[in-house]
């Protein structure tokens, strides 16, 4: 690990100021992404600004009937929060299908948004990677690109965003609240927060250096939400493909729908056109199949990841069936048992 100076911030102002004073600084929340990558020499900040003491961990109701998740609220606290369990079930399912209890206890809401890709070439400092070192090329293009993107990638970068939580937040239309370093705030709709690689694959989000996330706000929501994740192991693995759904019903017709796809692009991928097809119609297997075809219409496979297209379509159909009640959930809503396609660890064993 590269040497760095450690600073502990007590307030938001403190954090912004310390960041401004240190050349090449980075914020540190739970540390589960930041320290991991520093140990690999992928990230080499000159200073860390520890923001864990900054009082940003509250989860509270907003004026317009939504829920504010403080940037320092742990993933565990969010997943088990009574309001999340009641009104934003898909978010709880997404979080609990990710990582492990220990990691979710450490991981923060803000940090989860900014965790870096799990592309193995990004993590390997002997390989070319435009995200790690702009201009060096992309080793994944000609390498093993099984886990990489089928949407929105280019020859500069084919990495995916690995978060489960973010896929649910995108479907739930969350808003990221940001404090700017020179004073002032801004609100970023979740779908605009992460970006596609474009000419700057080193930038995962639209956040500017020194900007601090203070909260992620969920708007009021009375519909059904659900998350479905497919992975290589029954548990404790990143998604190969995942789907988050938010459905609002009017009697037995669909009033509004939002579909976000995970691990298929550099950001949670909104299947906006597919979602539109559902509006005003009754839930139905054929309708969902057509929407899934639509969602993956523009998907572009790489050498090793073509499987993501049929897998993604099937996962989407199933997620829609489960959300609308045409198929039963595989486990209690709001738990990892509902969101883990194929069951969880040891399901095939007696007990």
């Amino acid at each position, binding site marked *: 690990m590269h040497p760095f100076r*450690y600073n502990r911030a007590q307030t938001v102002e403190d954090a912004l100021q310390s960041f401004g004073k240190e050349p090449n600084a980075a914020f540190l929340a739970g540390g589960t992404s930041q320290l991991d990558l520093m140990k690999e020499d992928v990230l080499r900040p000159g200073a860390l600004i520890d923001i864990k003491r900054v009082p940003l961990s509250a989860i509270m109701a907003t004026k317009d009937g939504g829920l504010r998740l403080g940037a320092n609220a742990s993933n565990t606290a969010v997943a088990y929060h009574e309001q999340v369990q009641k009104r934003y079930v898909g978010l709880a399912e997404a979080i609990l299908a990710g990582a*492990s*209890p220990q990691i979710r206890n450490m991981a923060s809401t803000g940090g989860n948004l900014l965790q870096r890709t799990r592309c193995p070439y990004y993590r390997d400092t002997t390989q070319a990677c435009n995200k790690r070192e702009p201009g060096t090329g992309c080793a994944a293009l000609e390498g093993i690109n099984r886990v990489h993107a089928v949407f929105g990638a280019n020859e500069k970068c084919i990495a995916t965003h690995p978060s489960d939580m973010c896929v649910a937040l995108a479907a739930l239309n969350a808003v990221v609240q940001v404090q700017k370093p020179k004073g002032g705030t801004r609100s970023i709709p979740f779908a605009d927060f992460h970006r596609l690689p474009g000419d700057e694959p080193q930038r995962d989000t639209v956040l500017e250096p020194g900007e601090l996330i203070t909260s992620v706000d969920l708007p009021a929501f009375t519909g059904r939400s659900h998350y479905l994740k497919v992975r290589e192991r029954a548990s404790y693995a990143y998604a190969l493909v995942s789907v988050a759904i938010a459905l609002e019903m009017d009697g037995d017709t669909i009033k509004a729908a939002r579909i976000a796809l995970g691990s298929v692009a550099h950001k949670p991928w909104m299947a906006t056109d597919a979602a539109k097809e559902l509006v005003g119609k009754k839930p139905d297997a054929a309708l969902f199949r057509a929407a899934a075809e639509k969602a993956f219409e523009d998907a572009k496979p790489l050498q090793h990841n073509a499987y993501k297209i049929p897998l993604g379509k099937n996962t989407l159909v199933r997620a829609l069936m489960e959300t609308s009640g045409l198929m039963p959930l595989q486990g209690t809503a709001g738990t990892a048992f509902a969101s883990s396609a194929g069951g969880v660890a040891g399901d095939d064993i007696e007990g």
Partner: protein
Amino acid sequence: MNPQKDAPANHHAPLATEMPNVGSTAPNFILDESSDAGETLHDLRGKPVIMVFSATDWNPAHAEQMAHLYNALVATTPDGDKLTGIRRKENEYALGFDAEEVTIPVLHDLDRNGSAAERFGVLGRKAVFVLDAEGVVRWSHVSSEGESPRVADIVAALQPAPVATAASNTAANGWQTNRRDFIVAALAGAIALAVLPGAPAEAQNPPAKPAVPSGATLPVQLNVNGKTHKLNLDSRVTLLDALRENIGLTGSKKGCDHGQCGACTVHIDGESRLSCLSLAAQQEGTKIVTIEGLAKGDDLHPVQQAFLDYDGYQCGYCTPGQIMSAVTLIREGHVKSDREIREGMSGNLCRCAAYPHILAAVKAARDSGKRV
């Protein structure tokens, strides 16, 4: 399996060579037998040299060892000299002072079971030797299995002025005539500390001196198992390394060091967390409980007892982490079914695949009626 590992124990013939005394010329050997250059130890004359026998645990990249180094150097630098930086370049250490940089060759990965170790009479043991520019042994420190050096002894032995006493196999004769000699000795002492772990935490605090200029070390106070430990650490030191290397609580294990295996699980403010992905400095003001803190005297914690009763392990490496996870899982009530236990324990990998027994142990502890 490395058959050489057991060599010292099975060696019935007397050791071929005695350890060279302080003041005698060090035996010569080829530095790198695999290279054609054939460079020998004597070729390095003209500069002091530090030799370290400890192929297995000396890893200069590890922050905790650099922290020891800083601490010992700062503690012992003669007044008037200001250390401004320390860097490792290949087989040398570059020490920056106000106006100049001094480099010292360090042969730091000598095989402690190899032929050089035999020549120096330290086969199978961890040892540090300092040779002066003429190739004469000036200082040495050897540790037998299980023996820990005392930081205070080493610091005392490093003082530029002759000191009366030192650890039995540590000799300091006031030979340091110039700053370079002093630095070599200080560096060797620091390496000895790093190579020979287990030094008591209290002794690690260097005497009051100005903070290290780079700002990379900092005082850190940790509350572990109800006891407060005042440490002075490199900012890079993880909680896991601080627990194991600085405080001497080696129950928490380092499996992957990247958050993937759970062997390092500890409780922080009552929650299971990974000590390998946390900086020690982040934990000031928190309450840390390690596996050593679960039992009450000789009374094992119910989960520890259940792991014993149900053979919840084979090699035991993952067990401290498994137990720490199981305790919080039971406390938090996520143990209602087998699948809930399996899912909740999924962050703790077991290379021996003792999973069925781990599950049985967690259920037994859950059903024991004892307070977990």
